[in-house]
C-alpha cells in the first residue's frame, strides 16, 4: 500500500491552518478562584411562564437562572412556591439527614466496611427538593447521586446501609456496587452504573403510563457529563416525539470525575438550552436554592401531568466533594472552588431562610444535626449486625445464580454445582450458606 504523506494540506490563500481546540478549566490545584465571569441573576427576577406554554416560550429561562432565595434569605418573585414552614422544616431535615448519612457512610468506607461510596454533598437540594415536588408514586429513574430521593420518600435507612454493606439483609442480594439501590415500592428504579441509560427508560415508562391512561409521571436524573451520551439525545427525542409525561433533571455539578463541564459542551451553550432544539420546555435553576428547585420541578410536573409534555431542567450546582471514595479532587481542581462557590450551600440557605421567617433558630438547627447524626449512627450499628462487606455474612451462596433468568437453565445449574464444589474444596467445614 502506498504511504500517505504526513501532511497533505496545501496553504489556501491567507487562511491560517486549522487549530484543534481542547477545553481547559479556569482553575487547577493551588489557583486562586474568581467566579466573577458567572452570571448569577438576582433572585425573584425570572418570569414564570404558564405551565401549558409552548416549549420555546421557556427559551429565556434556559440562559437565565431561576432563583427564589435572595441575599436576605427571603423567598421572592413569581417562582416562590410559598411552602408552609412545616414543609420547609421537613425538607431541611431530609437534606440534613442525607448529609449525615453521607458522612457516616463515607467514614464506613474508609473504615473498610464497604468497597465504595458516593456523597452528594452540596447537591442535596437537587434530589430532596425535587422529590418534595413530585407525587410519591411518580416513578424516578435516578443516576447514582440521588440518595436524597430515597430518604425523602421514607425508604428505611437500614435498607440503604444493608445494600452498601452487601450483607445478608441486602435486598439486592449483594449483587450491586454500593449505592446502586433499587426500590420498586418507593417508585425508585434500579440504578445502573452505566450512564444516561436511565433516560430513555424514563421516557419509555412515561409513554407506557400515558398509553394506559395513568396519572403518574416519570422523572429521570443525569449528570451534565453524561448528557454527552447518545442515550440522553434519544431520550429527549422520544420524549418530544410522543409528548411523554417525563421530567429530565440534569444535575450540572461542574464535574464528571476530573473533567470539567466544558467537555460536555458547557462552554458553548447552557445544558437547559438543549431542550429547545428538541421542542421540549427548558428551565435552568439555581440548584443550591431548594425553593427554586422545588418550584421548577413542580412546574414541570404539573405540565407533564396535564399532557403538556416533557421538560429538561438544568440544576446548576457544585460537587463539593470527590466523585466517589475512589477519587481525590485535589489532584485536578482548586480547593478554593468550593469555598468561593457563589451559590452557597443548600442546607445553609434553607436554614437561614427558616430563621429569617422566625420559624427556626441556630439552636434548633444544632439539635437537628445532632438528632440526624444519632439516627444514622444507630441505624448503621443495627445494619452491621447483618454483616459488612467481606466478613462472611452474605447472601446464601446459591443466590449468585438466581435471577439471571426467571428460571435456572441447565448450564447455570451446572455452573452452580461447580461453584458449590469449589467452595467445599476450599472450605471443607462450609455450612452450605
Amino acid at each position, binding site marked *: 500500500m502506498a504511504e500517505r504523506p504526513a501532511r497533505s494540506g496545501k496553504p489556501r490563500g491567507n487562511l491560517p491552518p486549522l487549530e484543534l481546540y481542547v477545553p481547559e478549566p479556569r482553575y487547577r490545584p493551588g489557583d486562586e478562584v474568581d467566579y466573577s465571569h458567572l452570571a448569577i441573576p438576582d433572585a425573584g427576577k425570572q418570569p414564570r411562564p404558564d405551565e401549558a406554554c409552548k416549549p420555546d416560550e421557556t427559551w429565556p429561562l434556559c440562559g437565565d437562572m431561576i432563583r427564589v432565595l435572595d441575599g436576605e434569605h427571603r423567598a421572592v418573585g413569581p417562582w416562590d412556591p410559598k411552602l408552609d414552614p412545616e414543609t420547609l422544616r421537613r425538607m431541611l431535615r431530609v437534606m440534613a439527614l442525607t448529609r449525615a448519612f453521607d458522612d457516616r457512610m463515607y467514614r464506613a468506607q474508609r473504615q473498610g466496611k464497604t468497597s465504595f461510596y458516593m456523597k452528594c454533598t452540596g447537591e442535596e437540594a437537587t434530589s430532596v427538593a425535587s422529590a418534595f415536588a413530585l407525587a410519591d408514586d411518580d*416513578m424516578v*429513574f435516578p443516576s447514582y447521586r440521588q440518595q436524597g430521593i430515597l430518604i425523602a420518600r421514607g425508604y428505611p435507612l437500614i435498607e440503604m446501609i444493608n445494600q452498601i454493606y452487601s450483607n445478608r439483609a441486602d*435486598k*439486592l*442480594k449483594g*449483587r*450491586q456496587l454500593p449505592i*446502586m439501590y*433499587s*426500590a*420498586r415500592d418507593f417508585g425508585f*428504579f*434500579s440504578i*445502573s452504573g*452505566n450512564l444516561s*441509560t436511565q*433516560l*430513555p*427508560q*424514563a*421516557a*419509555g*415508562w*412515561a*409513554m*407506557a*403510563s400515558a*398509553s*394506559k391512561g395513568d396519572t403518574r409521571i*416519570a422523572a429521570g436524573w443525569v449528570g451534565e457529563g453524561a448528557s454527552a451520551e*447518545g*442515550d440522553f439525545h*434519544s*431520550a429527549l*427525542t*422520544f420524549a418530544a*416525539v410522543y409528548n411523554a409525561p417525563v421530567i429530565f433533571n440534569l444535575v450540572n455539578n461542574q464535574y464528571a470525575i476530573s473533567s470539567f463541564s466544558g467537555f460536555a459542551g458547557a462552554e458553548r451553550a447552557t445544558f437547559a438550552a438543549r431542550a429547545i432544539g428538541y421542542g421540549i420546555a427548558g428551565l435552568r435553576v439555581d440548584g443550591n436554592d431548594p425553593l427554586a428547585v422545588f418550584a421548577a420541578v413542580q412546574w414541570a410536573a404539573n405540565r407533564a401531568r396535564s399532557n403538556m409534555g416533557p421538560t429538561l431542567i438544568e440544576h446548576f450546582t457544585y460537587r463539593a466533594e470527590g466523585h466517589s471514595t475512589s477519587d481525590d479532587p485535589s489532584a485536578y481542581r482548586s480547593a478554593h472552588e468550593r469555598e468561593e462557590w457563589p451559590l452557597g450551600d443548600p442546607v445553609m440557605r434553607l436554614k437561614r431562610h427558616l430563621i429569617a421567617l422566625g420559624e427556626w433558630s441556630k439552636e434548633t438547627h444544632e439539635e437537628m444535626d445532632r438528632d440526624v447524626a444519632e439516627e444514622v449512627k444507630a441505624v448503621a450499628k443495627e445494619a452491621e449486625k447483618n454483616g459488612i462487606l467481606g466478613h462472611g455474612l452474605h447472601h446464601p451462596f446459591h443466590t449468585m445464580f438466581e*435471577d*439471571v*433468568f*426467571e428460571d435456572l*437453565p*441447565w*448450564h447455570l445449574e451446572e455452573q452452580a454445582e461447580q461453584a458449590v464444589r469449589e467452595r467445599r474444596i476450599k472450605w471443607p467445614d462450609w455450612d452450605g450458606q
Partner: protein
Amino acid sequence: MSVEESPVSLSEAPTRRLNMIEAINDALDIMLERDPNVVIMGEDVGYFGGVFRCTAGLQEKYGKTRVFDTPISEGGIIGVAVGMGAYGLRPVPEIQFADYIYPGLDQLVSEAARLRYRSAGEFIAPMTVRAPFGGGIFGGQTHSQSPEALFTHVAGLKTVVPSTPHDAKGLLIAAIEDNDPVIFFEPKRIYNGPFDGYYDRPAKTWEHHPGSEVPEGYYSLPLGKARIVREGAALTVLAYGTMIHVAESVLAEKGVDAEIIDLRTLVPIDIEAVEKSVEKTGKCLVIHEATRTSGFGAELAALVQERCFYHLEAPIERVTGFDTPYPHSLEWAYFPGPVRIGEAVDRLLAAG
C-alpha cells in the same frame, strides 16, 4: 401451553399455508389480541406495516398506541422498551435489520439483560426484540449480518432463530410470553421460501414445505427445545435458521443419512438433543452463516467435545461464513453453501 404438552395434537388443529412473514404477523396479531400489555414499535412498523410487512394491518386493527412507528434510534427503541417493561408492558420492538442493532447494544447488554439480576427481581425486562438477519438477498454488508453470537455471549439474554413458518409463530408467541428479554432473529432469506443453498436455481416458495402448515390460533413452542428435522445415523448436523434448509438439500443430494437438528433456541440450548444425537452418530457438523471466529459454532463444538468426546469418531467440522464483512457482489462466495458443506461432509464420512 406448548405444542408438545397440548392435548390437541397439531394434526387436529386446522392449519393454513403461510409464509414466514404471515406466520410472524399471525403471532403478533394473536398476542396483541390476548394481552393488552403487548405493544409493537419500530421503524416503519405502524401504518406502513414494516419494510418486510411483518406488522401489516396491525396498527389499523389495534390502534396507534399499541403499534407505532419510532424515531430512527435503536438505542432509544430498546431503552424505551426497558422502561415500558418496568411499567408492566410487554414490548415487542422491531429492529429493521439485525445490522442496525448495535446502537441498542448497551441497552440490551447492560440494562435489559441484567435488570432482573441487579434489582433481585424487582424489575424485569420482558421484551422480544425482533430483527431480520442473515444474507443471501444482495443486502451488502449492512443488511446481511448474523450477529447472534454477540447476544448468546450475554448472561441474561435468550436468543431464538426459527427456520419455518410453523416454528416462527410458535416460538415468537413463546418469546413474547417469556419474562426475560429474547432476541428473535428472523432469517430473512427464508421469509418467502425455504432456500436450498443453490442460488443459481429457481427460488421456491413455502407452498410445498410441511413447515408452512401453520395451525390457526394460539400455540407456543417452548424455548430451549430443539427440533429433529430428520433422523439419521451417519452424522449429526447442528444448525438453525436458513442453514437448516441448505443442509437438508445438500445432504439429500449427496444421499447421506444425516441427523439434522434445528436448535431453534441458541440460549438456552437443548443440550440433551445435541448429546443424544452425537452419541448416536459419532460425527458432528456445525453450520452457521455468521463469521467463523468466536461464532456460535465455536460454542457448539466446545460443548460437543466436552460432553461427547468419547463418542466422536472424527474431528467436529465447522462450516461458516468467512471472517470478512458480507460482500455485496461476491455474497455467494461468502455464503456457506453446498460446496463448503459438501467438503466438510466428505471429510467427516472419510474419517473413522
